[in-house]
């Protein structure tokens, strides 16, 4: 966990006071909606179909038990008893009242949580690997650098009114769990051939209306140059990014139109002017941030304790362990993913009661720490393997132990037309139907790793472009239709999926997905050839044929 200092607490508290005054003036009519809109957006407040939606930042997806309980409290006291974890490691509340928002923010501020820059044309919540700091083989904890960027970008005056929103993601592992290639700036922390630690910097990735995979703009940037280099990118974007057309305003369009070489040259020229400025980071600054992250005092524990050997006789436990328990950098410990994708449930939702219970379990079994992943699941990052059987029982009791992590029913979905004012079609009922179709764990396991991502509109909050199977809701003559893509992925081999054919109506989407899966099972070379690899080998044609032969 990172411990905020007095400055952080002051900023957050002052922001609550400021927003309380802004809300008061809005409700009295002193501020018009036109004047207020930007202010509320900068505090994470959107207007959706039924009510205001309140998006709360969870920097790099790390939560303490106190913070999770505070989120549960907000869900219970100010909303309808649940929250929705998002693909940017945030949480959203769907039914918040504007008049009560300052109180909700004040309650969150008590535990160091805020909603700053969870919306608006500024630098958004810095996201990272949900296994940061505990993943085996990681170069170092990427949250140290995420936190540096959080501090640098929070309320940065030059970057508070960018042409469009701007998102950072950081990973320090070979396997990218942070989807860095589909972010405006993606950072991969690694050791170069000389053994020095630094960043590969990618730029111009993004989904939405015009998806692009990020391009490497600089293969290696030393940590002490990170802020100056990132600032150079932001300055070039701020100067040349289009403000005349919202659909062409993201940095990905600028990079595409200029070309990566020209864009890199502009950035380089800008960077050379400021490289040795105050933005050059002193080691002491990094050490200070590093020192504010506390890590558990791990015990020396066996890899295969008696408790685990005994529990291995229970097939339900074993199914969960094999699916949801992952290796930890410390022997005797494990990372446990909590599936927020129960059969028939809305992906990413957690009730206040579940949040409280998870906080209790994190306190007891995970050194008081919880993580949020961009796949809309939670994780307990420091679980002693001896505790796995008892933890499983407790997680199962509250409905977050469905053994479907990374399987076909572990679906990423945006709120869609059930909640969102931008959506063209519903996402959640499609996801729910798919989880019912693939509820059989043995079948899902036999299919293997398969990511289904669903968005209710082209803005792509459900990351449909990078789903192994992507589903995009569109409107045709007032009816909900869905375009299906296959072959997308968001990891280190990120690719945008390929459309397989004409959109299909709402009632046929689950059938189409079943057809695609059946085609895969018939066509794969061997049981361990993953869906995504089979699509790469075969192309989309065999799947297209299967889906449209009878339609």
């Amino acid at each position, binding site marked *: 966990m990172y411990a905020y200092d007095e400055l952080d607490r002051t900023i957050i508290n002052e922001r609550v006071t400021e927003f309380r005054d802004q809300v008061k003036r809005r409700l009295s*009519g002193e501020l018009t*909606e036109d004047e207020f809109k930007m202010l509320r957006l900068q505090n994470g407040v959107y207007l959706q179909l039924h009510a205001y939606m309140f998006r709360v930042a969870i920097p790099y997806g790390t939560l303490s038990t106190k913070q999770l309980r505070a989120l549960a409290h907000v869900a219970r006291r100010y909303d309808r008893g649940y929250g929705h974890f998002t693909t940017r490691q945030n949480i959203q509340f769907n039914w918040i*009242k504007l008049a009560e928002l300052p109180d909700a923010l004040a309650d969150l501020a008590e535990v160091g949580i805020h909603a700053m820059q969870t919306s608006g044309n500024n630098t958004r919540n810095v996201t990272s690997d949900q296994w940061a700091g505990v993943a085996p083989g990681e170069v170092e904890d990427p949250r140290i650098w995420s936190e540096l960027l959080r501090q640098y970008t929070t309320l940065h005056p030059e970057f508070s009114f960018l042409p469009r929103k701007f998102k950072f993601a950081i990973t320090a592992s070979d396997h990218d769990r942070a989807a860095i290639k589909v972010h405006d700036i993606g950072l991969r922390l690694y050791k170069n051939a000389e053994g020095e630690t630094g960043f590969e910097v990618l730029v111009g990735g993004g989904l939405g209306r015009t998806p692009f995979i990020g391009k490497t703009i600089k293969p290696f940037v030393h940590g002490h140059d990170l802020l100056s280099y990132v600032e150079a990118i932001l300055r070039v974007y701020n100067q040349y990014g289009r403000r005349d057309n919202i659909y062409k305003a993201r940095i990905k369009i600028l990079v595409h139109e200029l070309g990566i070489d020209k864009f890199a040259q502009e950035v380089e020229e800008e960077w050379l002017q400021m490289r040795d400025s105050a933005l050059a980071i002193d080691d002491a600054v990094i050490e200070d941030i590093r020192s504010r992250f506390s890590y558990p005092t791990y015990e020396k524990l066996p890899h295969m304790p008696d408790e685990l050997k005994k529990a291995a006789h229970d097939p339900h436990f074993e199914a969960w362990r094999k699916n949801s328990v992952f290796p930890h950098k410390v022997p005797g410990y494990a990372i446990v993913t909590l599936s927020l994708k129960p059969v028939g449930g809305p992906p990413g939702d*957690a*009730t206040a009661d579940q949040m409280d219970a998870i906080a209790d379990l994190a306190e007891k079994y995970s050194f008081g720490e919880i993580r949020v992943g961009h796949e809309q699941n939670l994780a307990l990052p420091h679980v002693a393997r001896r505790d796995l059987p008892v933890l499983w029982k407790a997680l199962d009791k509250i409905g977050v132990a469905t053994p479907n992590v990374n399987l076909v029913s572990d679906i990423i979905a945006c709120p869609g*037309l*059930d909640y969102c004012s931008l959506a063209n079609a519903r996402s959640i*009922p499609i996801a729910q139907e798919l989880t019912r179709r693939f509820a059989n764990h043995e079948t899902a396991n036999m299919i293997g790793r398969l990511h289904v991502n669903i968005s209710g*509109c082209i803005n792509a909050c459900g990351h449909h472009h990078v789903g192994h199977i992507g589903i995009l809701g569109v409107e045709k003559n007032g009816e909900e239709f869905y375009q299906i893509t296959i072959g997308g992925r968001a990891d280190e081999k990120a690719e945008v999926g390929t459309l397989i054919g004409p959109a299909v109506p709402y009632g046929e989407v689950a059938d189409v997905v079943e057809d695609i899966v059946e085609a895969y099972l018939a066509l794969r070379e061997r049981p361990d050839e993953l869906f995504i690899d089979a699509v790469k080998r075969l192309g989309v044609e065999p799947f297209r044929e299967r889906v449209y032969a009878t339609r």
Partner: protein
Amino acid sequence: MTSPLEQKKIRITGPSVVTANRTWDGIVIYRTARQGWSAELSDAAIVRTSDEARALLTESVADDVGAIGAYIAPVEVKDSGAIKPGNLREHIRLQGVTIDLPVPA
């Protein structure tokens, strides 16, 4: 459903209402013929021409304190006089989400 946020020109082809969200709590409301707002669609003022729609929207937008995001939405007027939402989006706004909420209301 095409988002009404993309509504550029006011041209209606059938009975319509003006809808918005109430400023202080965000709930869905409809403009009434008495220059007020109601949470009941049955209270909504029905307009049938583009000029009427424009006038009702102009009047609605002028109430910046009471309502936010006013726009014109299609409705169906049944033979009985009952008013029904004209598309799925408006149906969801009126009736609520089409799924079971994680915590029953």
